[in-house]
């Protein structure tokens, strides 16, 4: 496509890549500029608002019920785009991953990447949805420079999956509890490109690298009631797509984008209040705060008798000022003139195909949590272990080697997690393998090494790798469990410290620790503590 790039380059020689010249008098552009200046002015407020987050929740008036629904766009990690062979790599130089199809050149036609269907079916099944065995694509039509064809290939009246649900465990610090949120629909569509605005605001440029990248849009039922629930729903969705391997779920890169709809109604009223859409939510934390802010804003308007000032609009979350501001008011419903996409055949699923995918689904976070719960782990452990796919895999692999669940959980939750936190590493970065962790636990359990030595070995394994056996051998760390050898060392400690023996026998029994320490020191920590104490007591008290 170098030719096309070159051609456009000639047309606009002052630009580097295909582009358009757009004056910034459009309302979309306005908000961008406003945002820039406001975030600078109000950056200092950030800290304050963050710290009041949990308080805000409790302060919510009891007379009003917030209703929250979420639309999530998940960018699929297919090798190529939805309808052409272009790869997509986040952050590539603009317009380096484009072709006639994703540029919408005359005569170019979309051909569906079958992975998109596979991923949609996977997520549909994971979300407990009903699948449409005969669905289709539709065109959603509107003009915008980042939309090359003047329409987005999407699904309208027959989404590939619908009527599902997502189970979530609310973290203990937010009150805990199990929630089930309804899923209205999951449909396939293509992403648009991006506009890049010049600093002086004279014109904008179009980057079409992202155009045609496959998305799944997941629409929830309006089942959430506060920011935490919404954020947990989104976090669970992120876990799900990562577990399924359909997306990297990265919010910063825009691989997972959430738009939330927030409305508030007086308790007891069945009619929904006017809903406001909030965008620009770049993390779960900002999502949670944005929603709570929006609820508070709407509740305040209600309680001041100004409910009519809540209008159907899109508001943008301002991270700097920690508030939502109007982005654009909706002037009636946009008419997208949907109609069936004639360039693509219908999407027909066969039971065999669906069954194949169903059987190949990995164990999902909810399944893992319930399984870990049944093992007798506490909810805190369960959430920590199950909510990160890699940690869960590590945990399960360690269990597979026969290690005890609670012991493994303790090691992971305490020392291993601490190490990862200090070193800023993920579980994939540490050198310790599940096999060796199991070996380590077994070695302590069977008395080969002491717990104390175990800890030392653990840190070596975490940082350097290697095997438990090697380290034990190399450093001569095998626990001394021979009573005769321990007795010798006890005798020597008693003989070397007659003064302390006298004091002990005189009633200062706390000195037992002193003697134990002496023996441990002499044994280089290898003496079996139980045996040591038993023998020591016998000798001291005799």
């Amino acid at each position, binding site marked *: 496509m170098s030719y096309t790039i070159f051609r456009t380059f000639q047309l606009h020689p002052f630009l580097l890549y295909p582009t358009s010249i757009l004056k910034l*008098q459009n309302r979309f552009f306005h908000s961008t500029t406003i945002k820039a200046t406001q975030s600078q002015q109000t950056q200092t407020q950030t800290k304050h608002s963050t710290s009041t987050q949990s308080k805000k929740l409790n302060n919510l008036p009891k007379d009003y019920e917030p209703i929250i629904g979420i639309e999530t766009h998940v960018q699929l990690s297919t090798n190529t785009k939805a309808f052409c062979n272009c790869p997509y790599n986040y952050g590539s130089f603009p317009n380096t991953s484009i072709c006639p199809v994703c540029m919408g050149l005359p*005569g170019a036609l979309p051909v*569906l990447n079958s992975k998109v269907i596979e991923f949609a079916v996977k997520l549909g099944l994971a979300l407990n949805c009903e699948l449409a065995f005969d669905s289709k694509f539709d065109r959603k039509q509107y003009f915008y*420079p980042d939309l090359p064809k003047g329409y987005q290939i999407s699904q309208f009246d027959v989404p590939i999956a619908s009527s599902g649900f997502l189970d979530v465990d609310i973290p203990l610090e937010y009150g805990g509890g199990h929630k089930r949120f309804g899923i209205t629909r999951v449909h396939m569509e293509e992403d648009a490109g991006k506009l890049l605005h010049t600093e002086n605001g004279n014109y904008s440029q179009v980057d079409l690298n992202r155009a045609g990248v496959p998305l799944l849009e997941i629409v929830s039922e309006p089942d959430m009631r506060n920011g935490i629930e919404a954020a947990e729903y989104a976090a669970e969705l992120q876990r799900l797509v990562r577990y399924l391997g359909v997306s990297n779920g990265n919010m910063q890169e825009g691989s997972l984008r959430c738009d939330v709809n927030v409305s508030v109604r007086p308790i007891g009223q069945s009619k929904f209040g006017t809903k406001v859409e909030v965008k620009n939510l770049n993390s779960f934390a900002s999502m949670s705060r944005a929603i709570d802010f929006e609820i508070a804003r709407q509740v305040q308007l209600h309680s001041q008798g100004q409910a009519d000032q809540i209008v159907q609009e899109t508001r943008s979350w301002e991270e700097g000022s920690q508030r939502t501001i109007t982005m654009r008011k909706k002037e009636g419903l946009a008419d997208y003139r949907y109609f069936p996409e004639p360039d693509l055949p219908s999407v027909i699923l066969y039971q065999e195909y669906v069954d194949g995918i169903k059987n190949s689904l990995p164990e999902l976070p909810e399944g893992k949590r319930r399984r870990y719960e049944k093992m007798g782990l506490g909810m805190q452990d369960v959430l920590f272990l199950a909510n990160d796919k890699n940690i869960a895999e590590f945990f399960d692999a360690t269990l597979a080697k026969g290690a005890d669940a609670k012991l493994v959980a303790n090691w992971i939750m305490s020392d291993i997690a601490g190490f990862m936190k200090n070193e800023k590493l993920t579980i994939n970065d540490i050198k310790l393998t599940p096999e060796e962790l199991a070996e380590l636990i077994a070695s302590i359990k069977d008395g080969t090494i002491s717990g104390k030595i175990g800890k030392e070995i653990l840190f070596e394994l975490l940082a350097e790798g290697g095997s438990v056996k090697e380290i034990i051998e190399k450093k001569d760390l095998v626990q001394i469990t021979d009573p005769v050898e321990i007795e010798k060392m006890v005798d020597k400690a008693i003989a070397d410290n007659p003064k302390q023996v006298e004091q002990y026998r005189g009633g200062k029994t706390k000195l037992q620790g002193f003697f134990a320490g002496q023996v441990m020191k002499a044994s280089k920590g290898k003496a079996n503590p139980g045996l040591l104490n038993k023998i020591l007591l016998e000798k001291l008290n005799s």
Partner: protein
Amino acid sequence: MKMLSTLQTPRSTLSRFSLPSSTITTQAILTHPQPTTAPPSQILTLRHSLLTNTLSATDLIQSHLTRIRLTEPHLRSFLHLPSDQSLLDQAHDLDRRIAAGEEVGPLAGVLVAVKDNICTADMPSTGGSRILDGYRPPFDATAVKRVKELGGIVVGKTNMDEFGMGSTTEASAFQVTANPWDVSRVPGGSSGGSAAAVSARQCVVSLGSDTGGSVRQPASFCGVVGLKPTYGRVSRFGLMAYASSLDAIGCFGSSVADAGILLHAIAGHDRFDATSSKQEVPNFLSHFDSASSLESKPLKGLRIGLIRETIEDGVDAGVVSAIRDAASHFEALGCSVSEVSLPSFSLGLPAYYVLALSESSSNLSRYDGIRYGNQVYAEELNSLYGESRAKGLGSEVKMRILMGTYALSAGYYDAYYKRAQQVRTIIRNSFKEALDQYDILISPAAPSAAYKIGEKKNDPLAMYAGDIMTVNVNLAGLPALVLPCGFIENGPTGLPVGLQMIGAAFNEGELLRVGHIFEQTLENCRFVPPIVADSVE
């Protein structure tokens, strides 16, 4: 024309395209027992001449360039002609390869004109629109790619109604093409340039596109063979979409054989078009009977249905009479011909216009001046769109976009688009039923012969009504072959009338076989327009 002994293709051709010598032969085509009007296959004749060294590709191009110089000023078939040198270079190369005994493709040296809405990487492709003036695609359409791979030489891009929206070429943003039979008349459209070019022997065969009759009606007006394949038979990749569910790339030739050879070259599944069919492409010509070997009743047992609704009121009497003569000719060849009624026939036109315009309003959204094509500078985004499209698109196109946008709008969708889809299903079913009873359905290709330039320009409804014969076939997705079958009176030479033969889906082979026999046995009709009659001799 020279007499050629046989078509023992002297050198092996690409295996996919091998022509069994026992079936179609140039002998059969060229040496009919009596002096005949039967058109020869120019492709096979040319191939034989090139491979027997009786004609060089360079001479061929030289005479082509001379003919273009003589005819093009009167006809204006082309929007773009490649430089003489680039054609001569290709000819030299071909001569060298033949001399070296290299294998050459089955279309080697065949001069192919390409409608301007079919993308060509080395030539501009405007679709007849101002908004794409100067646009050069970075790729060849699949059909063009295949033609080139088989040795065809693209001799230019032909004029057309803007984006295929018209029936005369008068809606071209650049020029009006004249009908070679009478330069005061339209060549039909929208593929008028491609039809005129074949008719005037400005090329051997040409590619057109047919959304509602845009190959068949100009074939009829210009007295050439026009083939609209089954929907999905030929890849649409590289064809600027007008109405995606109806669009088909079609073939023009001066004989049925040539149209069939071109179709064979371009047909087949293409991974770049999800709507292209995986149906096997048979060697259409292998079923051809040579004219000399024909029995007295070569089409014995063939059931032909003449669609009654196409020869009723509103159809030119001369056209009806030519079609009735064609029906008699079929009977003489042994067919049984009876009239068949398709009650849904008249519903086709409104359903077609609703669907085609709805799809076009969407397909033409990409012409926004942002990424390619001509952009009008504006202070504000909506003005940029508005001005670029207002200046770049012609009035017919704008009218159709407006109507299509209306039909898809909230509140109107059910009444228009959805209802038209229901009608489409009815039409499809009624054709299927009729084609269960009959092997082939016949009708005129257009309700009249070519009319005067300007005659219907200000009466779009009259022009739309002219599509009545053809749109149903697109709605049903069926293949149809139009071939000249007679004349109506007009001056010394008359104007050609086209017969439309409609077959079952993916059965182009049967249409071509029957059409070939019809054409080879038709007497007293010679479909070479006066503008070139002398030089063709």
